[in-house]
């Protein structure tokens, strides 16, 4: 890890705090740049917030600090964490050996930190974990406070944990999960506590095969390996089909783009953040600042999000997506009446080639694997490069199953 400033932006804002350097690795954590810190800048991967110093830090970091963890620094993130591939950070895409990588994953693989706190908006942490053989937990929506987190798509944004093994994830989850009065979408304390336990063991897993379409051999191989290990551990894996779950990302793209558009409208060059140098009049101040400071993806998300809320489109799009959401939740509920978890891929390939990066539409629909858990708020664990989704509050059970299936035989 070079100390050069550019590369620092690429991977990490290194904390000047001497304790951070000397802390034992098991106590060192990082947070991606959607998580606000008062001691280090928080940029959301955007030129708009370059150098932004928040007046307050995230609740989860406060809890971790109280529990004896040290924040070693911040990890680069795609602009507002919308981009699944993680390429759109203003400060540069992270690459390893010429291949697109992910800052949080690199930090973990390099042994710099034991866990990274990320914001799962559209699934990038799950995708990164799958492609790097790491563990990621997107907790049940509402079990981890979003106070002090840069908002993207609030109805699904979830503070998540990435680590090298399930034990580290569990340890962090135990500290950060819990009720917070400052977050109006936070569950009561007792409910958060149940999410930490492994109360209901995972015995039967459903695998919606129509959702494995479009994945390459590597991913199919991981699904097969996972299935085999599960069955060896006495867990049944049953093939099913679900049409409605397969359109999760179409609905999520609508909801997410509308909410992101609304959440970034506050960045206007007036109160803080990037302001254009040349403008004449308030209209140009707004337009020049926002046009210069936002990347192309965010600009198109803003346009899409705005269109979907237009008076004449609202019913056919946004409102429709809200109802589709209910159908998806009901479809999962139906599956959970027979099964304890749903197995899905987390990405279409274990490493993205040129084709997917060149096809903007392929990039746009790559979130079809991560959207089901995003739109429903259900917990999702990535382990063995695949994804397990469970009932609400079954986070502990999913982690236990992940440990059993992918870690017990040294997999």
């Amino acid at each position, binding site marked *: 890890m070079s100390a050069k400033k550019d590369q620092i932006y690429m991977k990490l804002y290194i904390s000047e705090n001497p304790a951070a350097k000397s802390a034992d690795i098991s106590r060192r954590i990082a947070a991606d740049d959607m998580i606000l810190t008062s001691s280090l800048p928080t940029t959301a991967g955007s030129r708009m917030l370059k150098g*932004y*110093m928040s*007046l*307050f830090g995230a609740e989860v970091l406060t809890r971790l600090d109280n529990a004896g963890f040290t924040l070693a620094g911040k990890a680069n993130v795609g602009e507002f964490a919308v981009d699944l591939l993680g390429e759109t950070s203003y400060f540069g895409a992270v690459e390893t050996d010429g291949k697109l990588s992910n800052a949080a994953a690199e930090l973990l693989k390099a042994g710099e930190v034991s866990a990274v706190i990320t914001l799962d908006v559209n699934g990038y942490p799950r995708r990164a974990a799958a492609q790097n053989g790491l563990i990621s937990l997107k907790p049940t*929506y*509402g079990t981890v406070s979003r106070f002090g987190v840069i908002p993207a798509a609030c*109805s*699904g944004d979830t503070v998540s944990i990435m680590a090298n093994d399930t034990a580290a994830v569990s340890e962090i989850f135990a500290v950060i999960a819990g009720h917070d*009065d400052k977050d*109006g*979408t*936070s*569950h009561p304390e007792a409910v958060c506590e149940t999410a930490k336990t492994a109360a209901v063991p995972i015995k039967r897993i459903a695998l919606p095969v129509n959702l494995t379409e479009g994945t390459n051999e590597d991913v199919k191989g991981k699904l097969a390996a996972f299935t085999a290990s599960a069955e060896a551990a006495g867990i049944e894996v049953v093939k099913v089909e679900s*049409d409605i779950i397969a*359109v999760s990302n*179409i609905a999520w793209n609508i909801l997410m783009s509308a909410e992101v*558009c609304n959440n970034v*409208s506050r960045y206007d*060059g*007036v*109160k*803080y*953040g990037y*302001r254009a140098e040349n*403008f*004449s*009049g*308030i*209209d140009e*101040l*707004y*337009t020049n600042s*926002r*046009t210069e400071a*936002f990347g*192309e993806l965010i*600009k*198109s998300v*803003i*346009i*899409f999000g*705005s*269109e979907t809320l*237009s008076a004449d489109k609202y019913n056919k799009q946004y*409102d*429709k*997506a*809200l*109802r*589709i*959401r*209910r*159908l998806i*939740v009901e479809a999962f509920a139906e599956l959970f009446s027979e099964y304890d978890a749903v197995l899905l891929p987390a990405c279409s390939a274990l490493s993205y080639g040129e084709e997917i990066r060149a096809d*903007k*539409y392929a990039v*746009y*629909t790559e979130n079809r694997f991560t959207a089901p858990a995003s739109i429903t*708020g259900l917990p999702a664990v990535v382990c063995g490069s695949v994804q397990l989704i469970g009932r*609400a509050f079954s986070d502990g059970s999913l982690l236990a199953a992940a440990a059993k299936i992918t870690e017990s035989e040294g997999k």
Partner: protein
Amino acid sequence: MTLGYLISLEQINQLSLTDRQREEIIAFFAARDAELERLYRFDTADTERMVHVMPIMTVVREDKAVQLFTREALQAAAPETDEGYWCVPRVLE
């Protein structure tokens, strides 16, 4: 999605796209609209919309005034302030 409509969307969001970006977005809308058709295969006439994924209700707090930060701290990163106000170019009303 027409160019005119796209420009009006830019305006209400205070953005100004390049011609290339506009072409790409218009093409994208066409692809997206085709995808939307897949949603319409599902009948939602009797389905209530789901705004919140979790059944949490009535989160309220006591009416008590608390000052968290000073004006100085809040305006530390401001591009332009004057006598305690944030400043922008003169707005005509």
